[in-house]
């Protein structure tokens, strides 16, 4: 399989409705091989519907999808051989052990019995489930099922990976492990699309983000606009009183103080760097200076505001 532009995921003008409910209206996105793209949107924005269409389970009403160079509607087998899907619903065969579940999944991808067993063993190590390998999956906790679900999506070493809320239910250590795994898979050339609500998590994982609101993906211009809008920065100083004075001296108004520090509205990064230099120059002992919310969260919140949608999403 070559590495032409058609690899990875491309979605063009896709829509899907269920009766009178338009779950996805107009989705356009591209995930090149070797990159991680975050799919972000409020509840009910159509993220899961979009992922189901990418996973070859749901046919779009309009628009085209290619996964690893194949159309899931006309050639679902080719798509399935190349695509791994981790659903948001945690389904596992209750009476099968973790190991047996992975072996059965491998054999569903037409692996030989020994190859499936070897791969299952490998994935148990990869997802840190050695201690759980021979337990029936019905006794697993939510986070453990989540790891099994991830392992199952990786059984056939897919070149395209779709992760629907992969981090929900995971403990902090497992989240870090997930992030490292996702980055490594991307480094090995996998095209990865991750949907999640944990935006801070995605900030560290994703190369790019796609915003989906009311079934429509936000255009690149709108995302750029939202990302560039004024945002809050949080500043902490050893002496809060001197910080307050420094800010006043810099002509910054509209500050707000919470238990973590002082929140300041700053137009852009250059203005933030400028402000920091001035504060330090004024002798304020700054101990922390950074954006109050992550890049994705900032853009997300900005795009979710009704006025950002041109009043269309009242």
């Amino acid at each position: 399989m070559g590495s032409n532009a058609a690899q990875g995921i491309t979605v063009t003008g896709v829509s899907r409705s269920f009766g009178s409910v338009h779950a996805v209206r107009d989705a356009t996105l591209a995930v090149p091989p070797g990159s991680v793209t975050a799919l972000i949107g409020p509840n009910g924005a159509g993220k899961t519907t979009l992922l189901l269409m990418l996973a070859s389970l749901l046919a779009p009403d309009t628009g085209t999808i290619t996964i690893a160079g194949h159309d899931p509607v006309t050639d679902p087998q080719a798509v399935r051989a190349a695509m791994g899907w981790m659903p948001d619903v945690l389904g596992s065969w209750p009476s099968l052990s973790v190991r047996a579940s992975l072996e059965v999944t491998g054999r569903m991808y037409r692996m030989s019995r020994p190859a499936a067993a070897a791969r299952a063993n490998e994935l148990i190590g990869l997802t840190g489930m050695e201690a759980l390998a021979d337990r029936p999956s019905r006794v697993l906790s939510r986070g453990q099922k989540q790891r099994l679900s991830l392992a199952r999506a990786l059984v056939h070493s897919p070149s395209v990976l779709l992760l629907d809320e992969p981090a929900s239910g995971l403990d902090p250590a497992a989240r870090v492990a997930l992030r490292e795994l996702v980055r490594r898979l991307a480094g090995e050339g996998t095209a990865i699309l991750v949907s999640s609500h944990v935006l801070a998590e995605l900030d560290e994982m994703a190369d790019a983000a796609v915003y989906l609101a009311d079934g429509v993906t936000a255009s690149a211009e709108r995302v750029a606009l939202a990302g560039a809008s004024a945002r809050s920065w949080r500043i902490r100083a050893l002496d809060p009183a001197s910080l307050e004075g420094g800010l006043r001296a810099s002509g910054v108004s509209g500050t707000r103080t919470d238990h973590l520090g002082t929140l300041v509205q700053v137009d852009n990064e250059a203005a933030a760097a400028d402000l920091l230099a001035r504060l330090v120059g004024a002798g304020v002992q700054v101990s922390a200076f950074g954006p109050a919310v992550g890049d994705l969260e900032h853009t997300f919140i900005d795009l979710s505001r009704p006025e950002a949608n041109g009043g269309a999403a009242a």
Partner: protein
Amino acid sequence: MSNTVDTNARPAVTPDRTPARDFVAGLWLIVTLELRQRVRGVAWYILLGIFVVLVAAVTVLLWLSTTAWETGGGAVFSAVIFFVLLLGTLVSPALSGNAINGDRDIGTLATTQVTLISTGQLVLGKFVAAWITALAFLAAAVPFLLFAVTLGQVSPGTIAVSVLVLAAEHGVIAAVGVGLSGVVTRPLFSIVVTYLIVAALSVGTPIAFVLLGTATKSEQTLTPPAGCHDPATTVDVPRFDRYWWVLAANPYVVVADASPGVFDTSGNPQDLFGWIAVGVRQAQVAPDLQAEVPYCNSTGQYYGDGKQPTARELYDNAVPSWFVGLGIHLALGAGALLWAWRRTITPARRLPTGRRVA
């Protein structure tokens, strides 16, 4: 541990692979998965145990009562076969009626559908697994059938045919159950509808047959024999001959009619199955609407030759009704599976209201 793309993990292409082999391998994987998932449980073995105890009790009681009547193995055999069919129709819908929608509920249907397992393999695999489960009940009853044989009067041909037809009937119920589980969204409803179909076939067909036959009447003119001065009379006769196929669709009738008829020298059936077969096939005979009465009332003279067709002659001259009945059942089962396949195929275009893909 590395997750580099290793050649083992890719679908390995070996020379002996063909699409047909791949299809069967995937199908069998689903069958074994289904059996491991659905069947291998304590509850199932308890159910099987209760079934064996019941069949044993029925066999022994029948044996005791029939030796009292000095008949023999034929009655015991027929009754045990019917009893196995009854219990099979009571158990099978519960085991097969949630095969597909139950998986959707626990979230394992979609994760199977994103693999290289096709919808055909999935539906057929679940059907085969449900059938095998039902056949386990039949297998558990075989010792009792053999015991009935040792009592005499039952030919090996009868045994073989009865067991085969019974197995086919269990397959039909499994197919209907699995099929409906793919059509109806909620597992409870699909199980109930499967039971209703079984009830319609077992109980509904005789009722429908009688009602339809008696509701549609024809006028029969009875003319007196030549030389007799009785007036011609007309009577209404029921037309069961138009609806015999309704009765033929009864699973009990299918099993009974399929066993080779064994008759004594005067042309009477030897066992219960034979009597049922004769009765059902008799229904195929259309009434003669211009019949001549062999008896003259005014003279008291009898003109007939006293010859009535024997049970054997009726049996031999009729269409084998089991063939028609089994044909209807197979069409029903195949149709249910086909419908389920159409409804489960992915990527899904149209979804029934209230159904999720995953």
